[in-house]
């Protein structure tokens, strides 16, 4: 009897994990609050990666992540499903992170440099280059040196798998400007790779 129950439990858990975000939200809104844990499990790691890179501090990242999930839960009834849940949720994460940055009195204007501005990525290039063994390691270390907006677009695009259109909704920027931010980030990284002839690693 116990085995049957256990099998049923495992099967129902697997079935729940295959549910779409909207199906889980419907279930939570019907009163099955426990199902919200499926959404948390689905997004916590990627959102944490984003926050840690934005806030450069593990404790702040954890606090903002917790705050974001609680905010999302409390306004889940207002989620109309016009956009994907991921876009809506990342918007909450993004705004909460900006609030934290502002409250910590960092120079937000400076960090949130406009997409029109150029940026210098190679100021501590020699140090990074000296401590990395290959192109991939080098690029990944440089991502953390990108200006905040550029890093955000890059992470949302590559780690969270959001489209440029979704990223523009999350960040409140136009699609063209979002594309410019991604291209500039890649071009800046590309130029440094070219400087060290890392492009040959592709061959």
């Amino acid at each position, binding site marked *: 009897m116990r085995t049957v129950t256990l099998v049923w439990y495992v099967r129902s858990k697997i079935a729940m994990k295959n549910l779409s975000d909207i199906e889980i939200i419907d279930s939570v809104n019907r009163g099955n609050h426990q199902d919200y844990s499926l959404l948390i499990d689905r997004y916590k790691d990627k959102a944490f990666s984003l926050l840690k890179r934005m806030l450069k501090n593990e404790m702040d990242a954890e606090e903002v992540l917790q705050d974001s999930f609680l905010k999302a839960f409390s306004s889940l009834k207002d989620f109309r499903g016009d956009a994907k849940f991921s876009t809506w949720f990342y918007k909450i994460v993004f705004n909460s992170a900006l609030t934290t940055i502002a409250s910590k009195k960092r120079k937000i204007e400076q960090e949130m440099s406009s997409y029109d501005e150029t940026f210098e990525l190679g100021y501590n290039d020699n140090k990074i280059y000296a401590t990395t063994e290959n192109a991939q390691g080098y690029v990944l270390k440089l991502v953390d040196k990108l200006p905040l907006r550029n890093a955000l677009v890059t992470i949302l695009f590559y780690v969270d798998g959001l489209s440029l259109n979704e990223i523009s909704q999350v960040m409140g920027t136009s699609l063209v400007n979002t594309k410019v931010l991604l291209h500039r980030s890649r*071009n800046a990284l590309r*130029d440094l790779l070219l400087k060290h002839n890392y492009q040959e690693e592709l061959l």
Partner: protein
Amino acid sequence: MKKITDETLNDYIDNQLDGASIQELKMDLDNNEEALKKLKALKVVDNSLKNIEVILAPEGFTNRIMSIIAKGSRKAVSKVSYFFVSVIGLFTALILAVMGFAYYTTASSTPSTEKGYSLNKISEYLAQFVSILQNVFKNQNITTIGMILTILLLISGYYLLESHKDFKNKLKNLS
């Protein structure tokens, strides 16, 4: 030699070019070593970024959030019930006290054959109770204090409502 822009190379990496544009780019790249180098470097960047490490959220994070939610739900439910129970309880107690008092005095002062008369007596007592209240509020000081308290209550109610609306708007803006 046709100039190959950074945008074209980035669009190629993102699969944003159509078949004809890809063919054209490939032909142009044959005669443009510098652009070819750039494309190779962009591919390295793209491949590297696809392997960005996902940083795992702290252990037990989901359980922590779920326990906060569970606590919050319990609090919300108990808050609502306490509020309604106290308001309804207060009114019920008041009505029962007035009716009980009226019934007790009527029953003790009237013979059992005159039960129909009791109802009239109850309404008389209720009228008396209302007139006592009226007399109390005839006093100018009490009326003034009552007015001030009412105004304060209305103002605080207004600010409470506004802050609630503001909070709801903030939540809506987030969505």
